[in-house]
Each structure stands twice: as structure tokens, then as C-alpha cells.
């Protein structure tokens, strides 16, 4: 029978498999040995394994995440993130701005509150669309279209392998779909999760802080799914490949973008009377 320590070692070995291939080939064996040495040290000192194992697994998981990030953006990570988020933020803000101006100019009653939440949600939808689609548009424009040099060999990692990328985005979409389904069946009180057990007490300056945070996290799942699914498409386009080289990824990108676009259109249609100053609109 497998002892507790053997089970932990086996689990740790499996965790190490998530490191990028180059890293794994060079250092995984040493890491495993070091982990085993640390386990032996705890055993000889007759200290509990649980605390150490939890710490080692979390610390290694963070290391795995860091190595994948460094592989995607070998330069300054912060600069890459800012560069990626900058344009979508600005574009979506510029698209929302005319409606904000219309709302201000055509306000019926200056005592009523400015609908910041409405514009934030509108901006978030537009931000999601541009974050997903902008890299694809850029990839298409910068692609060398040199068929003599097709898609270059990729370093095979979780975020560069088209299959694992597809799986990650499907899992992200499914998590939202399953949550919504369970909610509609009354199994998960999503409404309660968003509003809290006592919504009245959660208001801080009229903002339900914890619920808004949960809502943002839920909202970010399909955005992440779209961005992740778009990554192989962008790489293929940059290498001069076809937009349709990854049809399943493209379907996910199109469907998610369409859903966000539908959200924008429905909000604009619903709020249009308010934007143009129709009396008694809500």
C-alpha cells in the first residue's frame, strides 16, 4: 500500500509536469529530489507533513505560473501587460465617451445620480471585445504573408499548445455556463452570491463591494476564455498563416465577442431614450 509520503511525492512529481518543457527537462529531476529531501527532513524531525506540503505545493505552483509568464513575455512582464491592456482600455473609453456626453448634455434632472454603473458595464463589454479582437486584427495586419516561412515552431507549453489552450478556454466557458445552469435550477443561489445574504449591509458608498467583486470575477471568465482562445490565432497570423487555421478557437472567439457585442447593443437600445433626453425614461 502507498504510504502518505509516497502519495505526496507522486503528487509533487505530477505537479512538476506543469512546468514548461525546457525547464522540466533541465530541473524537474533535481526539484523532485530536493522535495524528497525536505520530506525526509520533516519526517526525521517528526514534524507534521501537512503544513510543509501545502507550502511547497503553493510555492511550486506560483513558480510554474511565473515560468509560463516569463516564457510568453521574456521581457518586462509589467510593460507587456500594460501594452496589452492600454489600447483596449483607451478604445473602449473613447467609444463610451459620446454616450456619456449625451447623458450629461440631455440630463432631465441635475439632482439625479449619474449612471456610473451603466457606463462602467458598457465600457467593460467594449473593453472585452477589443481585448479579444485587437490582437487578432494586429496579427492580421503585421503578418508577413510569406508562405515560404510558415508558422514557426512553438515552445510547447500549456499556453502555447493550441489543444491545451482550447481546453482551458472551454473549461472557462463551461464554468460560467454551469454556474448559470445551476442557478436557473436553483442549486446555486447565484443571486445570493452576487447580492450577499443581507444586501442592505453590504453597501459601502452605494457600491456593494464584495458582490461587485464576485460579479467582476464571473465577468472576467468569458473574457479570459476569449483572450486565451485567440492566442494561437494571433501567433498563426503573425507568422503569415490563415485566420482559419484554428477553426474551433475562432468559433469561441467569434461567439464570445458576439455575446459581448449583443450586450452592448441591448444596453444602447434600452438606454437610448435616456441618452437623447426623453422624459420619464428609466
Amino acid at each position, binding site marked *: 500500500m502507498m504510504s502518505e509520503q509516497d502519495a505526496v511525492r507522486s503528487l509533487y512529481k505530477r505537479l512538476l509536469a506543469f512546468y514548461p518543457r525546457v525547464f522540466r527537462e*533541465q530541473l524537474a529531476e*533535481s*526539484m523532485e529530489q*530536493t522535495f524528497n*529531501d525536505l520530506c525526509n527532513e520533516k519526517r526525521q524531525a517528526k514534524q507534521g507533513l501537512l503544513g510543509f506540503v501545502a507550502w*511547497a505545493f503553493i*510555492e*511550486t505552483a506560483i513558480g510554474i505560473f*511565473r515560468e509560463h509568464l516569463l516564457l510568453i513575455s521574456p521581457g518586462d512582464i509589467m510593460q507587456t501587460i500594460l501594452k496589452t491592456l492600454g489600447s483596449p482600455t483607451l478604445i473602449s473609453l473613447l467609444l463610451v465617451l459620446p454616450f456619456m456626453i449625451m447623458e450629461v448634455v440631455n440630463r432631465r434632472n441635475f439632482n439625479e445620480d449619474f449612471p456610473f454603473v451603466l457606463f462602467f458595464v458598457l465600457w467593460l463589454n467594449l473593453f472585452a471585445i477589443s481585448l479579444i479582437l485587437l490582437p487578432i486584427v494586429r496579427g492580421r495586419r503585421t503578418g508577413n504573408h510569406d508562405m515560404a516561412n510558415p508558422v514557426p515552431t512553438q515552445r510547447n507549453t500549456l499556453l502555447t499548445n493550441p489543444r491545451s489552450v482550447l481546453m482551458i478556454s472551454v473549461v472557462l466557458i463551461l464554468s460560467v455556463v454551469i454556474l448559470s445552469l445551476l442557478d436557473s435550477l436553483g442549486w446555486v443561489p447565484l443571486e445570493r452570491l452576487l447580492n450577499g445574504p443581507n444586501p442592505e449591509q453590504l453597501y459601502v458608498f452605494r457600491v456593494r463591494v464584495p458582490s461587485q467583486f464576485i460579479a467582476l470575477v464571473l465577468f472576467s471568465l468569458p473574457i479570459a476564455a476569449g483572450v486565451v482562445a485567440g492566442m494561437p490565432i494571433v501567433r498563426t497570423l503573425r507568422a503569415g498563416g490563415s485566420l482559419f487555421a484554428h477553426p474551433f478557437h475562432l468559433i469561441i472567439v467569434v461567439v464570445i465577442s458576439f455575446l459581448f457585442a449583443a450586450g452592448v447593443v441591448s444596453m444602447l437600445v434600452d438606454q437610448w431614450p435616456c441618452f437623447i433626453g426623453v422624459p420619464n425614461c428609466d
Partner: protein
Amino acid sequence: MTTVDHLPLTPAVFHILLALSSGERHGYGIMKQVEADSQGKVTMGPGTLYGSLKRMLDAGLVKESDKRVDPEMDDERRIYYQITGVGAQALAAELERYKHIVTLAKDRKLLPKTFAYDV
């Protein structure tokens, strides 16, 4: 890449170089030496240690030595790591930087024994 390009060293890289300055060590040996050098104040996990080692190997600060058995441990063969010439230079330059900071702190009476109110 020159020595200056590596400076300032991250605390993890600094402690690993310091641990390897006294001889070749395997991963667990580095961890224990770092713990001893820092009087138990720095505890490095496997993720941090090997992440730093990877970058140090790529930068030429350390190199893999031969694979052999540690006589004080089990009979498993382990990869040993050793500091390179570039690594030793980077460590010396970083220590020089620390020395300059300590001198500066002394001049400004920031060290515990030189606090203005102690005099």
C-alpha cells in the same frame, strides 16, 4: 553580458551565489546553506530556488557540475551546481555595493550603534 548588467542581484540570486561561494552544492544543500547563512531568516522553497537557478544558469552565473552521490545522504545521484567566474564577479560587485551602502549608513548615523540619540 557584463557583471554590471546583473546588478543589483535579487535576494534569492544573492543568497544562492553566497551559498555556492564556499563550494559546489546540490539543490537541498543550497537551501540548507542559505538558511544557515541567513541565520534562518531566509527560507527558499523549491519553486523560488530552481526558478532562480534556471535564470542563473542561462545568465552564466552558475553551471551544473557532475552528477554524483552525496555521502552524507542517500545513494541517489544528484546534480551539483557551482559558481562560475562571472557569478563570483557579480557576487563581489554586489558585496561591494552593500559595503558602500553600509558606509553611507554609518556616515548618516543610521546603524544601531551610531544613532544620534545613542551618542
